[in-house]
């Protein structure tokens, strides 16, 4: 027997858990230290927002909410790496990218507050809404990329999903077709170690999720998902390859879900305490702040000022959210079809007659 093919999976990290560089900084960030501060500020804003959003749910002012605690580096890094004319096909932990693509904090609250208008993104109109069914979104991304290829547009798509989503058929189908057609798609797996209560190791016997790229003949890269610099850089490079016609990439961003799956979950039932304690030592914001401080890019005064600004911004968004009047009840009918059929118009009239 002889070996006919061999494959490798690369791992990328710039910033280690101690907040020190394990790899020299990418040249872009060397030349643009203000970009690092921007990334940090977004992560902090996201965490402040997250805490308040959970409180809104707990006090009955919002519905079920999916937290991003501990995963801020993934979505913030993705959002920063994307160009305006790229398209984002998100799942439900991507607010860090949303904030950079014109989706307001108010709209995120509106979505989880049970109002479809939260998905009528005002910034990037081609971005998909949050995908709740697991893994279906990977195929939409491949379809959008097929349209780009058909129109010969140098654009790319980023699609995200959790570690559990890599067990779904749609995930494999999307990887396969993206590889076969060399589509401009970047698949990012937010491996936060948990699909509700099922751990990453119970999900698959694979050593890495990144290696699932191999069967589709595309690069599979594992990245420290607690390192925003690494996420940003790897996604940036993958997007560049995609736009240049050099095909798709699968990126696995390793981090840890420091929150419940959603506000409807209680992770203390299944997350081992010692694992969680360890994960808190590796979380993305602490290490990044430490790094910025050692580089004299950040200090306590700036931190205080940022915290105040974030609190104000989130409070303002919550106030705005609270004052949005509900849609008319007829809104449930008005977006089913461009032209509603007669039978639906009749039902609409009945609903209006019995409105509560």
């Amino acid at each position: 027997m002889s070996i006919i093919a061999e494959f490798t999976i690369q791992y990328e990290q710039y910033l280690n858990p101690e907040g020190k560089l394990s790899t020299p900084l990418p040249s872009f960030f060397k030349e643009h230290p203000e970009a690092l501060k921007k990334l940090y500020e977004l992560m902090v804003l996201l965490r402040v927002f997250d805490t308040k959003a959970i409180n809104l749910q707990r006090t009955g002012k919002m519905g079920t909410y999916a937290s991003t605690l501990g995963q801020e580096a993934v979505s913030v890094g993705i959002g920063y790496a994307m160009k305006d004319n790229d398209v984002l096909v998100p799942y439900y932990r991507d607010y860090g990218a949303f904030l950079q693509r014109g989706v307001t904090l108010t709209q995120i609250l509106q979505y989880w507050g049970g109002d479809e208008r939260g998905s009528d993104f005002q910034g990037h109109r081609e971005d998909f809404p949050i995908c709740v069914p697991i893994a279906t979104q990977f195929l939409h991304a491949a379809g959008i990329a097929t349209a780009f290829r058909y129109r010969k547009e140098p654009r790319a798509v980023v699609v995200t999903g959790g570690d559990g989503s890599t067990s779904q058929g749609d995930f494999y189908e999307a990887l396969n077709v993206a590889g076969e057609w060399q589509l401009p798609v970047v698949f990012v797996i937010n491996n936060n170690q948990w699909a509700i209560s099922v751990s990453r190791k119970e999900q698959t016997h694979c050593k890495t999720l990144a290696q699932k790229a191999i069967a589709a003949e595309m690069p599979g890269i594992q990245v420290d998902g607690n390192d925003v610099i690494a996420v940003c850089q790897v996604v940036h490079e993958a997007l560049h390859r995609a736009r240049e016609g050099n095909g798709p990439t699968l990126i696995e961003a390793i981090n840890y879900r420091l929150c419940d799956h959603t506000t409807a979950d209680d992770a203390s039932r299944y997350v081992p305490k010692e694992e969680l304690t360890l994960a808190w030592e590796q979380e993305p914001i602490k290490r990044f702040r430490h790094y910025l401080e050692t580089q004299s890019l950040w200090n306590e005064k700036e931190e205080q000022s940022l915290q105040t600004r974030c609190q104000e911004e989130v409070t303002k968004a919550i106030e705005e959210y609270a004052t949005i009047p509900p849609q008319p009840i007829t809104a449930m009918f008005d977006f089913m079809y461009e032209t509603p059929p007669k039978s639906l118009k009749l039902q609409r009239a009945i609903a209006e007659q019995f409105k509560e």
Partner: protein
Amino acid sequence: MAEITLVEAVTQALAYEMKKDHSVVLMGEDIGINGGVFRATDGLYKEFGKDRVIDSPLAESMIAGLAIGMAAQGLKPVVEFQFMGFIYPAIDQFINHAARLRNRTRGRLTCPLVARAPFGGGIRAPEHHSESTEALFAHIPGLKVVIPSSPARAYGLLLAAIRDPDPVVFLEPKRIYRLVKQEVPDNGVALPLEKSFLLREGSDVTLISWGASMHETLQAAEVLSTQNIHADVIDVASIKPLDIDTILTSVEKTGRVVIVHEAAKTGGVGAEISALITEHAFLSLLAPIERVTGYDTVMPYFKLEKNYLPSVSRILHAVKKTMEFL
């Protein structure tokens, strides 16, 4: 003008719209150089090239999911599912995404795709190749379901489906793909969706059907006319949304109704039509509504399939029952 079959009318409509509208793109399994297993895309690969007649990997959920992404980008994907029995992996994509993308985004993103699939039995095919599960799709808010039953209606309705701004499931009755030929002018004139077709006029009984069963229904009407029973025969064509007005107008005239469909009886579209007639024309009815349908069994393998499909004699029996009711 040459006469063409129903499947040739499908090809003609696809070619017409592809010439006119560069955003129309075909995708499916074996639809390229092979022209589809039923030859519905015969010659289109040669005429329009591989970028517009795309042979896809063999994965049905993938076909639907890709089409959704393409449609949201403003393309008009017309995707082929090789047989209706193989469309089920794509149902998640249809229900959770295609049918509700417009609604979820308050009209920001839309999904103008067409999903074509040959359906129905009677061609001595292997198992899983003879399904009639149109009711599954008709039940889904946000989808439209269209079934032609003649070459002319296949042409006009497919054009309408492609031009429609929302997702349309277009089911092609493969048993009659080549059963009849007629002249179909290639003039690009679409037929309206949400409209039923009165194929034959009479005042004694209303026969309602769609798809391949139209053939037996029309034969039954012919036999009835020799017995001095004159039937209105309606091809529903648009399963969702239903054109109930055409049906009610007929029922108010005849007072007697027989609904014929190949799909299983329970939860079939016939049940919906029957309920609507009862809601809106109860006092016009002179007899209970009869349904002649496939049985609530798995579609039998082909040795028994003729016993499953609604036959002329079963239709005549149902008409007799309704005519003799007081």
